[in-house]
């Protein structure tokens, strides 16, 4: 088949793949977003239930759906665990490295899975604040958001929609 690379997943990735937490669509979420594209073989949907607590908007519940590899499913699942009970301001600070670390590490070619998960979360947070951006939320896309966006555009950019042709 194509050029392959060894993928020694960690037991944490395997366990989350086997028994993902917070899996499934949320009905009437307060915020949601999708990142990735079927063409890339990677799509993550993030759903958030948000409540106002004092000065903060706090994530009460987070769910995910994933079309992707085992690492993709595990990354989305662990991220929904990580954000629960945190304010949106706090959740915004979660980096893809944090997600990879909680998974016990990801093979280098799978880092884009955690980038996509974090990119999806940040996109959901932006949706929530559409039209009323708080001060802590950067106006410009962060590196992770750009990378998620880039992956969505990658197939067209690299291959013009078709590989292996003349």
């Amino acid at each position, binding site marked *: *088949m*194509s*050029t*392959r*690379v060894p*993928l*020694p*997943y*960690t*037991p944490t990735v*395997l*366990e989350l*793949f*086997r028994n*993902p937490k917070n*899996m*499934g*669509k949320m009905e009437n979420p307060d915020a949601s977003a*999708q990142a990735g594209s*079927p*063409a*890339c*073989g*990677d*799509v993550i*949907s993030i759903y958030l239930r948000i409540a106002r607590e004092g000065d903060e908007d706090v994530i009460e519940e987070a769910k995910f*759906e*994933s*079309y*992707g*590899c*085992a*690492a*993709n*499913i595990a990354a989305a699942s662990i991220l929904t665990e990580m954000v629960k009970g945190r304010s949106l301001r706090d959740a915004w600070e979660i980096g893809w490295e944090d997600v*990879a670390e909680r998974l016990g*590490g*990801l*093979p*280098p*070619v799978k880092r884009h899975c955690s980038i996509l998960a974090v990119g999806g979360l940040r996109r959901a947070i932006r949706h929530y604040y559409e039209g009323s951006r708080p001060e802590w939320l950067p106006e410009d896309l962060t590196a992770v958001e750009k990378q998620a966006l880039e*992956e969505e555009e*990658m*197939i067209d950019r*690299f*291959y013009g929609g*078709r*590989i*292996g*042709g*003349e």
Partner: protein
Amino acid sequence: MFMPSVSALLKAHGTPPKEVYLDHENSGWVPPEVVEAMLPYFNERGYGHPSITNKPGWEALEVVESTAETVAATLSVDPSQIHFVHSGTEANNLAILGSMMALKRKGKIIVSDIEHYSVLLPALSLEDAGFRVVRAPVDEEGFVDIDVIRELVDSETVLVSVQAVNHEIGTVQRLKEIVEVVKDRNPDVIFHTDACDAYGKVPLKAEEIGVDLMTLSSHKILGPKGVGVLWVSEGVRVEPILKGALSSQSLWPGVENVPALAGFRKAVELAFQDGLSRVSSLRDRLINGILDGVPDTQLNGPSGEMRAPDNVNISFLHVEGEALTVELSLRGVYVSSGSACTSRVLEPSHVMLAIGKDYEAAHGSLLFKLTRYHSEGDVDYVVDQVIESVGRLREISPLGKG
């Protein structure tokens, strides 16, 4: 720094109660008879060097020669035309690079769009040396368009390489017809066929088909890894691409892997003694079981007699193939996928894309290869596990839910 522990992964994975290995595309399970045939040659006899004048050396030479005779008989060719190398990949490289090195001139090379990487990449590497490489398109079942081949072959053409059977989707090419068209247009063209997936599975008489070079691989017929064959027709010149002390092999330097050759010899005997009719009925049982049991699936490659008897390749929409291989592995079903997520670059199988599959179908494809050691019970188990696995991953997937 990511320091993975494969042993921790294996411990977390565990051993499923039933295991069915179907990844014979990538590496093979080796039958006990074959292993047994290899064992004496490590330390009982034939452990010498086939070109040295002592008894263990002559015993080694006997294995090399009798393996060549066994293989030659199955192809109806002369044993002196059988050249051993260390893998199908090496044999394909030798065929492409070695024949072009021997040619002493440049020209056009035509390869089909769905060749194995060990044909495509050496061919493309020759572009730097001044050759022009053209990839011949295939139709949606993987068949080479013979009219396009006829148009492509010209006086500049020096080499054509078309697989006898495709390794991913099992397309059995109309090779004899293609060779006739090529030789009719230009009789000087060297015609190579990668027959790794055809050998022992479909009729393959090299001279009758009319090819000049043919590649075989031991592990594709349940022999040990580490043996490839390049058959070289009389009068066709090939130069060794590895340099070193030549021994019994004029195209490959180094010490012959005699135990592996003994295993390969046994594997050839077994493959040709059994026939494969039972495998094609298992193939159809697996195809029908999955297509009937799982909605939104597509069979990749042709059906019936023009499909290799051992090959099943199916796309499962809305799920990603690598996740499916892991899910099935946890259930003891071992297969591979054409997904980009198993590869070094973000690029799904070039074979899937060449037959016009969209990216989602390519990402969701699974490849199963059956052997005569599988039973109907194995196939039924696999069908059940595939149905459950696809069902579980579709629950997780946001796609295909309307």
